[in-house]
């Protein structure tokens, strides 16, 4: 399959596909981070995660419309406000869901899966009813359009670079929050031993609620970033949910580093293969590879050792 290309062409194909893979990687990381926090830290399967992401995307869309219509002079900066709004909207919805539904189901993980699937159906239909079934796309501000030429055959899009920078910033922020703040310490304590954490005075219910809210909020930001590279419809979230779950499980559910490593592996494998095979075969081979590796190594790539 390599025979038809010259060496230089092959090189730039790999770089370009690698870059496309990096954009996919950013979206995976952003989605998987939220999921890894919720699934890895709390053991809850949130099938509605994609819908929280889409909520963020819609918030971004409406913010952009608002800026376009009322304060066009500040349009270049709307994205930063949109991101914050998306975080709080998705986070607030997440906390409400935790309070109404999830907290009754902590002892029945498989049932959470069904309940959140129901929630995702309701949210999808809600989006369809309220926002219409058509896909919407945001208008990018001028400074985000175009691409930077790197060499004759290789160029990179600015919006892609921006999404990557955003991903790095959010990942660092989450890592700091989880591993350096006292709140993060509480979360990790609850994960390792819920009873002991409660016994030393940590309000585990409150930690649960904020953890869930944080995970959903990050999903909202992911949705916000998602609008930069694609359009949004009521069912867009569902397209990514299986991939994202595989990313989280493949990485080892409780390790942020593992999540990032597995998102990188999966997205790079997929986008590189996509160039040489058809898109669907690339996806099948990637997913199949992940499933087979998971069958051989069910605990995922990275594991933290915890005495139970």
């Amino acid at each position, binding site marked *: 399959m390599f025979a038809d290309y010259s060496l230089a062409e092959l090189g730039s194909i790999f770089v370009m596909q690698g870059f496309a893979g990096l954009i996919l990687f950013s979206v995976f990381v952003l989605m998987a981070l939220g999921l890894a926090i919720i699934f890895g830290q709390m053991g809850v399967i949130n099938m509605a995660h994609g819908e929280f992401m889409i909520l963020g995307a819609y918030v971004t869309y409406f913010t952009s419309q608002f800026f376009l219509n009322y304060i066009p002079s500040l349009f270049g900066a709307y994205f930063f406000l949109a991101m914050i709004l998306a975080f709080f909207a998705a986070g607030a919805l997440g906390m409400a869901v935790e309070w109404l539904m999830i907290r009754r189901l902590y002892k029945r993980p498989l049932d959470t899966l*069904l309940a959140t699937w129901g929630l995702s159906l309701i949210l999808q239909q809600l989006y369809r009813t309220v926002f219409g079934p058509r896909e919407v796309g945001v208008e990018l501000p001028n400074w985000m359009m175009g691409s930077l030429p790197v060499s004759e055959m290789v160029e990179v899009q600015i919006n892609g670079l921006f999404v990557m920078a955003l991903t790095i910033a959010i990942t660092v922020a989450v890592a700091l929050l989880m591993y350096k703040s006292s709140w993060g310490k509480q979360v990790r304590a609850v994960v390792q031993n819920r009873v002991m954490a409660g016994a030393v005075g940590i309000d585990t219910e409150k930690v649960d609620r904020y953890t869930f809210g944080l995970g959903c909020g990050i999903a909202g930001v992911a949705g916000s970033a998602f609008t930069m590279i694609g359009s949004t419809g009521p069912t867009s979230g569902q397209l990514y949910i299986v991939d994202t779950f595989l990313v989280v499980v493949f990485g080892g559910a409780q390790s942020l580093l593992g999540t990032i490593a597995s998102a990188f592996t999966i997205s790079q494998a997929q986008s590189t293969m996509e160039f040489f095979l058809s898109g669907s075969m690339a996806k099948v081979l990637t997913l199949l590879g992940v499933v087979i590796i998971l069958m051989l190594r069910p605990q995922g790539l990275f594991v933290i050792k915890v005495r139970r």
Partner: protein
Amino acid sequence: MIKSDRTFFLRPQDMIGIAILAFLLIVILPLSLDNFRLQFVGKYLTYAFVALGLVLCWGYAGILSLGQGVFFGLGGYCMAMFLKLESSSVEATKIQTTPGIPDFMDWNQITELPYMWQPFNSLTLTIIAVILVPALFAFIVGFAMFKRRVGGVYFAIITQALAAIMTILIIGQQGYTGGINGITDLRTLNGWDIRSDSAKTILYFVCVALLLACILIAYFVKSSKLGRILVAMRDKEDRVRFSGYDVANFKVFVFCLAASLSAIGGAMFTLQVGFMSPSFVGIVPSIEMVIYAAVGGRLSILGAIYGTLLVNWAKTSFSESFPELWLFGLGGLFIAVVLIFPNGIAGLWQTYIAPRLGPLFGGAATRRASPPATPPAPPSPSAAAPAAAE
């Protein structure tokens, strides 16, 4: 070892329940519904096979598979491949570039019948394939995972990924599978026109008969020693393991059984509806099939059948009149069945109706109705580890 106090696998109340269901399906529904509606019921009943498999696999053994649509699809596709080959005889397809192969292959520039389609020229081999191919697939997946003690949530996610893979594969390999349209335009089964009204009625009764047979199999498994080991395993897997049982083998068995049951449903679906497409294989239909079992009651074999009929009936009537509302309804059903009535219709029946019916029938029969005989106890069917009290 618990010594069984009965020699026959059906208790009297089970027999009454099966008789009532059989009466409903064989006499009441055919007499009260017109042909069009009866075909709908026939279609719903094919999903009931899947729900039945899920009761054994999820309700009794605690293994939630979100990929049952894969097995339903495998069974359906096996049957569809046979029917398609029969309807693409050389005479019927002589306008094609290569006569004698299915039309979609011709459109995709395939000039020879692919290797994997060859066995489906024979009905006997097809029927064997309907039952064995899904079971074999389930065996590979189950063996790899249960031997490594993968279970619970991880198993659910991986089976879900398998459903996704299967759909993408079917859609992508258009020349071999018919792509997104599936395998359509199926006409005859060994020369017998399956599209006529009389054929559809006969197929309905065949479907009911097969379903009743599968129900008996399910009861047999449930009341056998194996069924008790499954329940024990669901509740305290380690104790069963320490008692010297190889837990993985039992799980693999029940998963394969559920796969075969689903596949029989899939094959009957193809026969009655006349086509098979990837839209019955993917993640969304697979999870929807779980809700049938959940609504009926995940611990009740007969409940699963009623649950399937009820959910599908609601789906059809809602989608006819208020298509917008159906997803709200389905979503609400998922949440309600988990939060409010985790044992489904069967649970409600045992809590509220059976105790009142008891005295009418002399008490003893219904009082010890079915496994979860203690209504107020909180259900913990999903094998969740009993975490400490909060």
